[in-house]
């Protein structure tokens, strides 16, 4: 298997026939007697592993070992020992990190869901431009730095390929948090949400971008809460039966601005539900009614116990509606939820 851009594939001849490897005695695979799940390797992989074992056993740190580790990883990106070996080689050989990042980029095109390559990349970037040095500069200068520009572009391309790639989003969060690139993140999130309003990863990233690493107990100011409500409702309007904006706005407010649930969110979604153009869609989506249950429970919490009954009764009535009409799939849950209202 060849990957374009991986320049270590120069000579496709078997290693045993290559002059550069004549001095090495490969170590054959020995699974022992009666192995479990043995793999019918290709001859090529089997040979590469024989030579890799040999150079690892000798503790060799060389360009040819680096190239070989790359070939093995391409064939088996889950080979965690080869990754550890490669990382050490890159350091020991003082390899050009930019070239190594190119190699990782080419690999990720074929293996976007592999965990190890993202972590390998993380370590490389940190070495190339340590965060401590980066944070001495203002954000706009950090963003102009070629290392970070390249990384943002790389993760952006990965998300172009698969807008929900969990590892890519995870890497992006590492990059943005480590190098404190907060100011540009909301705009990126907005672009991703515009491309697909149902992309839950993008909505999750919005939470990340708004909170900026602050703890779950943080209280957001009223203006910010109002702005996020407006943003969420605008997107709910576009497609009411969409889990993501509902989960986002209810979750955000429950944690960080609970009063805004009934002061800001409730009137807006009620208005939308009363609008003839949106009423059918709103009244038939479980997310609208589920949000009302959450909102009424929160409203009740803010009142003295003696005054809670009407809101809790309303919440229970909505659970009935969900169980019997709007969200029959989860009817058992809604019956259970009804008993837990106000608990």
């Amino acid at each position, binding site marked *: 298997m060849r990957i374009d851009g991986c320049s270590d594939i120069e000579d496709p001849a078997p290693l045993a026939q290559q002059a550069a490897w004549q001095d090495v005695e490969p*170590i054959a*695979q020995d699974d*022992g007697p*009666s192995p479990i799940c043995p793999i019918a390797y290709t001859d090529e992989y089997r040979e590469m592993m024989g030579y890799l074992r040999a150079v690892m056993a000798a503790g060799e740190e060389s360009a040819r070992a680096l190239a070989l580790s790359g070939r093995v990883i391409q064939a088996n990106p889950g080979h965690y*020992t080869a*990754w550890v070996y490669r990382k050490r080689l890159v350091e020991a050989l003082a390899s050009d990190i930019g070239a190594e990042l190119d190699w990782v980029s080419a690999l990720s095109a074929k293996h976007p869901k592999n965990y190890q390559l993202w972590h390998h990349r993380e370590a490389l970037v940190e070495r190339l431009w340590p965060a401590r040095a980066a944070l001495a500069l203002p954000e706009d200068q950090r963003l102009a730095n070629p290392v970070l520009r390249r990384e943002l572009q790389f993760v952006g391309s990965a998300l172009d390929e698969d807008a929900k790639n969990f590892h890519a989003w995870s890497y992006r969060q590492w990059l943005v948090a480590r190098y404190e690139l907060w100011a540009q993140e909301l705009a990126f999130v907005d672009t991703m949400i515009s491309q697909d309003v149902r992309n839950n990863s993008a909505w*999750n990233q919005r939470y990340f971008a708004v909170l900026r690493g602050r703890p779950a107990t943080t209280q957001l100011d009223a203006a910010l809460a109002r702005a996020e409500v407006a943003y969420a409702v605008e997107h709910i309007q576009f497609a009411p039966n969409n889990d*993501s904006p509902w989960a986002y706005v209810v979750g955000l407010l429950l944690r960080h601005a609970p009063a805004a649930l009934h002061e800001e969110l409730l009137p807006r979604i009620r208005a939308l539900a009363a609008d003839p153009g949106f009423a059918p869609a709103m009244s038939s989506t479980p997310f609208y009614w589920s949000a009302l249950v959450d909102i009424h429970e929160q409203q009740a919490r803010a009142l003295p116990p003696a005054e809670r009954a009407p809101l809790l009764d309303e919440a229970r009535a909505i659970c009935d509606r969900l169980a019997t009409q709007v969200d029959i799939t989860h009817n058992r849950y809604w019956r*259970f939820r009804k008993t837990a209202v106000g608990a």
Partner: protein
Amino acid sequence: MAAELAINAHARYFKHCLTMLPAETTSLDATRMTIAQLCLVGLATLGRLEDTLPEKRRAEMVEWIYAQQIPNGRGGYGGFRGGSLFGPHDRCEYEPANSGNLAATYSALCSLLLLGDDLSRVDKQAVVGAIRSLQQESGTFAPHPGTTERDPRFIYCACAISTILGDWSGVDKDAATRYIVGCCNYDGGLTQMPFQESHGGHLYCCIAGLSLMGRLDALPSRQRTLQWALFRQSGGYQGRANKAPDVCYSFWVGASIEILGGHDLVDSSAVVHFIQQCESTIGGLSKWPGYLPDPLHAALGIVGFSFHRPEQFPHISPELLLPASVVDRLQTLEIRRR
């Protein structure tokens, strides 16, 4: 009652995988121990383990697994390797050949138990010591030295290993619990690290980890987490909101719901129906209907199915991914008293 799953075909499929995997699965070379575990738990759930694997074969498999245990004093890590790709220990003393990891150790212990072994040859001190050395200050765990990977998958492995061996001295439960609580997301779901997207696989690792540690009460809102998990059901279970259902979440999300006490709140027939749609005509199950099967989706689909057919299938512990009969036998193991 007619069989609802093609038990014979799936048993043959697992036997096939245990015997030989095709070249296309080369990327599993370092995780064969986990593939073995999945095939064995799949067979055990189908009630076909002893039929499919005669005693002699089971004994040979036990030997192969123990051959992956890193000898005392070797390398920087105690426990088991993920496979035999580096050959027997008596012929390789260099560090990479002796590199194990937490997931392989967890899979090895489960596989040994499923094969009827009593774990008497497990180097308990080394395993527990390795766990201790891999826990990070934040409370999470790395899988092995030399990587920045560290997430709830390995917290789970550490907790499962500690439960099996009856020794928690390698786990700072307070720190691990704190980390998991930090992974509770705005939507009630759980994830890999604070702020990342709620994900069914990490949900399982966090919930099962908490349960094994006896710390489920640390969840800020059990009800919201249960709600998140239940709302992943649209026919089958999806792993994240607005994604297609995938049969492996029949276990990751399904087992989490069992642990959280939500078994009666699931639309059982819809889950069963989806899992059946994922059965492959060549045996095994695929992530989506009509795709090619693989051992992970086969095993987890079958275990997920078993939660809804308790009269037909043995009870599988949602926390340990082991038959209840095996979990019960843990109490009798001498290694736990060492």
